[in-house]
């Protein structure tokens, strides 16, 4: 998985504890919802996964709490970012940079502050708490939904053009008694104001990084069907909240067929290539078309004239590029080769092709530099590489357009047809990539993985999978 290593991300991680809760959603008219355990697992996974992805924080640093109060007492960094299962942060450097601004401005509580109840409350989707201010204020309880009478601080605020309200600032008015339905965070809001703090709204610039989850605000069955049974295209009658959520999972992430980028290079390290050797050599290598890791693996494990290389990929243009490369490139100047074949490749497909890493594909020199960057850990010299490539080109190659997660039966058939002797399959992070986690539930991913692993083992003397088994991305 290509996480960006970003100083802003590191700065956020140093200051923030990440916590997930599973709060019943609050509605001032209806009260609180029930939660659905199976759906909650899926929602927690999405929240955890994208928090890991977006802040580059280890999964075990994200913890699960039963309440906001428990989250605040469970750790000790300056801030606590509490997301309700299903809420998503998505982005890289820009998100972290913006989050740092939010941290600097967070006097006490930052959230989506609403005033539709008896008193102001915080939308349970996501809230940020300044833990040091919370401690100084005597560690007040956050406040949970209930109906009754409470004495609370009166803020100053103003309506916004979009129908919301501004930040809440302390006012000159005395506390008042309010009778009505209270939502999440009512007490923290009141305590914060009493302590002289401004209670902040999430600033508008954060909107582009945050995806709300309306799972418990509309038909639960539809949400279960969409998220647990992998029906990623919502029915026309699906509620807007679900359509919006699925749009993110399906379109924004670039996981639709037409938006998948071609990985011209592969930045994965060699660390997951086992130190191993086969005296009679590998018989069949199932490899993805992305970059040149297939060559790195084969050079490390070893291959012989009998080795068959099966390129499989869900990305047809990537396969086409790989076929051109194997059949036409002499191994010397990849920059010149790629630049020359690119128009022909793009003419083969009606859609506009996207490439990764696009910023290094502008000149032949930059492409060659990136090529060397990918290869130098395995190939110690040009002679080493060119000898490998010339042998590699003489092997039998096949190109199969398949999706590991969608076409499990076809994958099994391909393996049964071609696997023999000692075979390996490079699966990269296919079962943990954004496409996989966003679109397919854990049981589906697990089943697809086990299915191909069993198929590979059945027909071979030894079988090896290189890449990650699917992970259930839950908080600790």
């Amino acid at each position, binding site marked *: 998985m290509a996480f960006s290593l970003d100083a802003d991300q590191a700065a956020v991680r*140093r200051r923030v504890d990440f916590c997930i809760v599973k709060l019943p959603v609050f509605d001032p008219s209806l009260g609180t919802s029930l939660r659905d355990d199976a759906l909650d697992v899926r929602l927690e996974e999405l929240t955890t996964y994208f928090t890991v992805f977006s802040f580059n924080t280890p999964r075990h640093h994200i913890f699960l709490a039963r309440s906001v109060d428990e989250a605040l007492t469970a750790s000790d960094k300056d801030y606590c970012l509490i997301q309700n299962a299903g809420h998503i942060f998505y982005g890289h450097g820009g998100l972290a940079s913006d989050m740092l601004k939010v941290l600097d401005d967070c006097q006490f509580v930052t959230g989506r502050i609403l005033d539709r109840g008896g008193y102001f409350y915080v939308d349970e989707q996501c809230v940020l708490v300044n833990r040091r201010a919370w401690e100084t204020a005597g560690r007040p309880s956050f406040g949970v939904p209930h109906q009754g009478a409470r004495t609370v601080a009166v803020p100053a605020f103003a309506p916004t053009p979009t129908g919301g309200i501004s930040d809440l600032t302390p006012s000159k008015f005395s506390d008042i008694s309010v009778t009505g339905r209270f939502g999440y965070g009512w007490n923290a809001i009141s305590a914060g104001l009493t302590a002289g703090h401004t209670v902040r709204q999430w600033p508008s610039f954060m909107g582009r990084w945050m995806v709300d989850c309306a799972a418990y605000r509309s038909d639960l069955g539809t949400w279960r069907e969409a998220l647990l049974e992998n029906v990623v295209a919502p029915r026309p009658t699906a509620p807007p909240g679900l359509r919006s959520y699925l749009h993110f999972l399906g379109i924004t992430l670039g996981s639709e067929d037409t938006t998948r980028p071609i990985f011209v290079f592969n930045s994965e390290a060699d660390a*997951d290539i*086992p*130190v*191993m*050797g*086969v*005296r*009679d050599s590998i018989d069949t290598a199932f490899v993805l078309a992305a970059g040149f890791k297939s060559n790195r693996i084969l050079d490390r494990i070893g291959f012989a004239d009998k080795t068959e290389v099966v390129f499989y990929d869900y990305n047809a243009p990537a396969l086409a590029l790989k076929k051109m490369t194997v059949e036409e490139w002499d191994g010397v100047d990849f920059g010149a080769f790629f630049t020359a074949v690119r128009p022909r490749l793009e003419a083969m497909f009606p859609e506009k092709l996207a490439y990764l890493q696009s910023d290094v594909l502008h000149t032949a020199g930059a492409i060659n530099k990136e090529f060397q960057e990918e290869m130098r850990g395995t190939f110690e010299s040009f002679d080493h590489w060119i000898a490998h490539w010339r042998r590699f080109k003489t092997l039998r190659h096949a190109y199969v357009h398949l999706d590991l997660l969608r076409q499990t039966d076809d994958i099994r058939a391909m393996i049964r047809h071609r696997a023999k002797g*000692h075979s390996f399959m490079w699966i990269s992070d296919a079962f943990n990539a954004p496409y996989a986690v966003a679109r397919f539930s854990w049981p589906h991913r697990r089943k697809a993985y086990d299915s191909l*692993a069993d198929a*590979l*083992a059945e027909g*071979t*003397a*030894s*079988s*090896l*999978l*290189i890449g990650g*088994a699917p992970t259930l991305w839950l908080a600790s």
Partner: protein
Amino acid sequence: MSGASDPKRLLREHVDFVLVNVPPFDAIAGHTPFPDLDLRLAELTACFTMATFDLQLQDLSFADSHDTALARGNKDFCLIQKFGHIFQGSDDVATALLQATDTCAFLMGHIMERGGYYYLHDQCVLVNRRAWERLERPAFGKPADGRKTVAVPRRSTADVHDDYTPLFLDPTGRETEQDAAYGYGWNAISQSLKAGIQVANWADAPRRWKHYCYAYYGDPAEWQRALGDVTQSLHTNDSGLRGIVDFLKQAANEIPNKIVALPGTALPFDIPAIRFNGGLDCLFAPARGFSANLILNAVGIHDAARIVHYDHNEAALTLKRRLIAHWDGEDFTAFAGPEHPIAFHHDLGFESKDSWLRHWQRFKGLCHEFIRLDPLAEPDAMVAAVQTNTAKTVMVAVDDCFDDSSALIRFDWHRRKAAYDSLIGALKANAELYVVVGTPPRRRIRG
């Protein structure tokens, strides 16, 4: 900062750790660098810095000068160690360094007065970066000769040792033009004094935990040989070298004593997702820990498999023999003693207690062999063990024995790599299919 409950964490938050390899100043062997020796010294400094302060390699940075070191990071303090400097000890080291940050107004280091202007010995210096910024980022000062205008200090009447290591330099408000030899840090010292800031020597607390390889003050080639394999007998007249080698031996010896018989939990490296249709024939695994069980659980157990338990530690072999002979897999703590409160099936990644017990009973029934050997220190013995256990499919768990602190302290990169390569060579010659699980030897330096 010194009141922290977790001094290492606080230290990491406030201090950039930088390694530099500036030429030695005033060294007997001169300024000519010995690259292989420098690599070894860098590796030792990095290894001990990571172990002592719970750092990862990426937490260290490497710079070609003190000025680069100061400009690169942004934490409140910058600890700049030259290759060959070592901090080693318990949590007290971090506490002592935290105390040093409390008193480091700008510069803290080994203040030297050897005839020219005052300078800081290059082995280790602590810089208060905020003070450095307030002083408009003055150059640190490199060795030079010539006439310079510098601040005149009032030196302490006492010294750390001898008569050229003042405890501190206080500002006097006076300057003088001096034609002299200048060493590292001369300009920073002068700028500090001009700004009215005392320059401090290392206090006793951090000094207790410091070591320095004065390799360039002796015979660098002799140092390189001795540090390449500290387990060898040493015949030298260099008391500094003898002291360092003794220290390294002791540091290495303390590590296995701490982990003997510890059952070990999840491996810090991945087991390849490999399956053998006929089952794995032979598995080599360290007796300490339970790598063998983790691997067999992952790749599948096969009743005809032979398990070769190897370890350089006789106690680990003895415990493993006892476990296989007498332990029912139920209550490890009751069997091995209360110092091992391990819930086995859970910590080892088995799905349930039942699955662990089924595995353990089947594992006990395999063919077991026990060999006392250290694959790193005795590569020939490891090769011989592989040769006498020729099999169709062989896996070798090396854990991190070629790359752990003990390995790094005892052997240089070339020896670690050669021992690993000899194991691979033996496997190639004696197995149809082999897999090595664990960390190969790595160079523990960056840059």
